[in-house]
């Protein structure tokens, strides 16, 4: 990455989202969440609190779960991003999405994209997490419908599913 001294005005930015390359310009003060939603149309990145408390805007940045509302878009230059939109393969849901569906792990659905991304971050590190590990991994994601019990069940089920079936790519 070349060091940059920015003049006022927009900066060039190139990144990959869900496997597709994008090149654009962005004002330095634009958050990554706003860039993904407004400039690229990934509105599955939900904005709740917009100051890093609720977890609804969680995405994967180079494979690790982060809150996109407290990252600047310019900081994501050169990175690989995954959002909820990139998980399903045509009609086939990602195992975590499928488990959320089967275990009624969402009610209004607002927290769901962030929950799913946080769960994927956990399952890529820990194949068969314990319930405390699942709860810890999801602790930064708030659900205002109080659906945590079914969310934890869904993540547990997704872990079992991915442990016994061929890897979902």
């Amino acid at each position, binding site marked *: *990455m*070349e*060091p*940059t*001294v*920015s003049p*006022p005005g927009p*900066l060039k930015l190139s990144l990959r989202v869900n496997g597709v390359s994008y090149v654009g310009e962005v*004002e*330095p*003060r*634009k*958050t990554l969440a*706003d860039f993904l939603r407004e400039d690229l149309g990934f509105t599955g990145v939900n904005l709740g609190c*917009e*100051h*890093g*408390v609720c*977890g609804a805007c*969680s995405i994967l*940045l180079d494979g*690790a*779960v*982060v*809150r996109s*509302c*407290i*990252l*600047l878009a*310019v*900081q994501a230059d050169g990175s690989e991003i995954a959002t909820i939109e990139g998980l399903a393969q045509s009609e086939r849901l990602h195992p975590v999405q499928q488990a959320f569906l089967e275990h009624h792990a969402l009610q209004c659905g607002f927290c769901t994209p962030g929950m799913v991304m*946080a769960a994927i*971050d*956990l399952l890529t590190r820990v194949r068969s997490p314990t319930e405390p590990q699942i709860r*810890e*991994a999801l*602790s*930064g*994601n708030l659900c205002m419908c109080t659906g945590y019990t079914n969310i934890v069940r869904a993540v547990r089920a997704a872990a079992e599913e991915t442990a016994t079936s061929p890897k979902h790519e």
Partner: protein
Amino acid sequence: MKPAPFRYYRAGSLPQALELLNGAAEGGKLLAGGQSLVPLMNLRLARPEALIDLNPIRELSYIRSENGEIAIGALTRHREMEFSALIARELPVLGAVMPQIGHPAIRNRGTLGGSLAHADPAAELPCVLTALDAKLIMVGSSGERVARAEDFFIGTYTTTLSDHEILKEARIPLTEANAGWSFLEFSRRHGDFALAETAVLLFTKDGRASARVVVGGSVDRPLRVRSVETLLENELARNSNSIENLLPEIERLTVSEVQNSEAAREDSEYLRNLTGVLARRAVKEAVDRWSQP
């Protein structure tokens, strides 16, 4: 909930960051993990005119063992410390603290240097690095400067780091065998900042028992509870098995030191008592580890 406009500078190296800080971006803020700064900017509680993004300086991200110390680069992320086998083995108290900081998404971005320089009085790392007697290395245009952690923090969100310096590294001395340790915090929700926290370290130094007891949360900077340290050192030197009997005294001394400290954040009996209870429990846990290596 959007930051006010600012000029953005990306530093590719430490010298370049210093040049920016003393030149084009003078008066600007350093952006490390951004997990406190960017929320403050979104809320417009902070409106820096310029940001110097330090994240491209990857050579400031490391954890290594050097000359009887563990050196940790300022841009090392919490997650790297959490999963470091070196830290788990050599600095178990630090390893135990890491999962208590925020949430996974925070720890994937947050950095050691950012947490220390931000100096939130309820943060975990300032408290535990003071207990570990870490040395903090700062660089400015005229060279390097070293401060012990207990001298670095001077108040709420306030350190001795000047506007023209960058925190570069923490160096933590390895304590000798037979170490006992504990870190306990109380927060209302998992992952929140601590209402009160206590770090206790017991070890042998030059053949003598040493104790470091540091509290946070109820004070505006990490506070060493020296009366409890002295009490523990005397008891351990006598090979005493009666520390159990001293626990009420340890709680009382802690409450009293917090109350009489100029660092006390507010006149809160609840926070003082909570700190005392945590100190008592943490001392017990550290002594148990000390006696059962």
